[in-house]
């Protein structure tokens, strides 16, 4: 039953991510690279965040309503949108003084 549910969720997720446009970000030395990315407005996008630091980071954005912990040396996917045109700031909450970035929807 659980396996069936997991399978169903997997299928749903695959179709969902197939529809989303993909972008990527890297966290290195508690900074985002690039610190600014442009995405299309009004569409769902999937942003893969690769944390190359050894320590975990929390990708957080109150504007985007995202809170996601990314373990050290690992990747995570953040799904956002559809967004209205504008600038949406995000931070790495565990190192908020250096880890800052902005998503520009246009």
């Amino acid at each position, binding site marked *: 039953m659980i396996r069936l549910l997991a399978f169903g969720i997997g299928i749903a*997720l695959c179709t969902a991510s197939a529809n989303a446009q993909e972008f990527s970000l890297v966290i290195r030395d508690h900074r985002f690279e690039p610190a600014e990315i442009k995405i299309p407005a009004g569409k769902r996008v999937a942003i893969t965040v690769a944390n190359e630091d050894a320590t*975990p980071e929390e990708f957080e954005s109150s*504007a985007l309503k995202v809170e996601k912990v990314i373990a050290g040396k690992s990747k995570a996917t953040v799904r956002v949108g559809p967004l209205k045109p504008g600038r949406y700031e995000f931070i790495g909450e565990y190192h908020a003084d250096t880890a800052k970035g902005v998503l520009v929807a246009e």
Partner: protein
Amino acid sequence: MLGAAVIVFREVIEAGLIIGIVLAVTRTVPRRGLWVSAGVLVASLGAALLALFAGRIADAFAGSGQELLNAAVLGIAVVMLMWHSLWMAKHGQELAASMAQLGRAVSSGRRPLTALAVVVGLAVLREGSELVLFLYGIVAAGTSASSLLLGSVLGLAAGAAFTALTYYGLLAIPTRYIFSVTSVLIALLAAGMAAQAVQYLDAAGLITVLGERLWDSSGLLPQDSIVGRLLHTLIGYNDRPTELQLITYAMTLLVMVALNWIATPSRPPRRAPA
């Protein structure tokens, strides 16, 4: 140091608010301290385990494991709150009717305590795993770890003080109102949790409908401010809710009120405790 204190405090108050409310709800129940502590303890261990496997959890379900786990945790908490509401509505009048019956009624129905212990546990689990990861980061970074650690301890202490404040604040409410007040609090708590679960399912990519943001009140009251966070936990305040979140919020609230209404036996004709 202050930064660490603020981060820890923000994580702790969300769980602290829920613990304070649950303690106030169960104030007359014998051995409630045991149940609530058990919930907190088990969940703290669980939070450490979650943090340990954070990487693997995040990778599950095509990278949406974390969101699905959060949504599931919130979903279970909502169900537990509904169960508690139902039980309280059934037995609340008996409880209020006679203090003598109190001990008997509660010992014959340990259920709401189990349910509330689970709610407390789930709240600690959710906030705790983030806390553990943050603290791990501090320890792993090495430099100036002691000052950050001191900040974290301060944040934790402030959070605990806040929990006590919530509890004693609620206790200050006159006894004949406290049942209605806590019923309303629990209903709002559940509605807020349900709306947040929707957000996680949206972030996981499972829900792709009704995702338009209805309004933006972040200029008025940002949700990531302390007051915004408190209201978020307490009544489900959201500065940029989606359509589906608002619908879910309203539906859950309706269900909570309906449960109270239906379950109350032979109610004298008066207005429902909303």
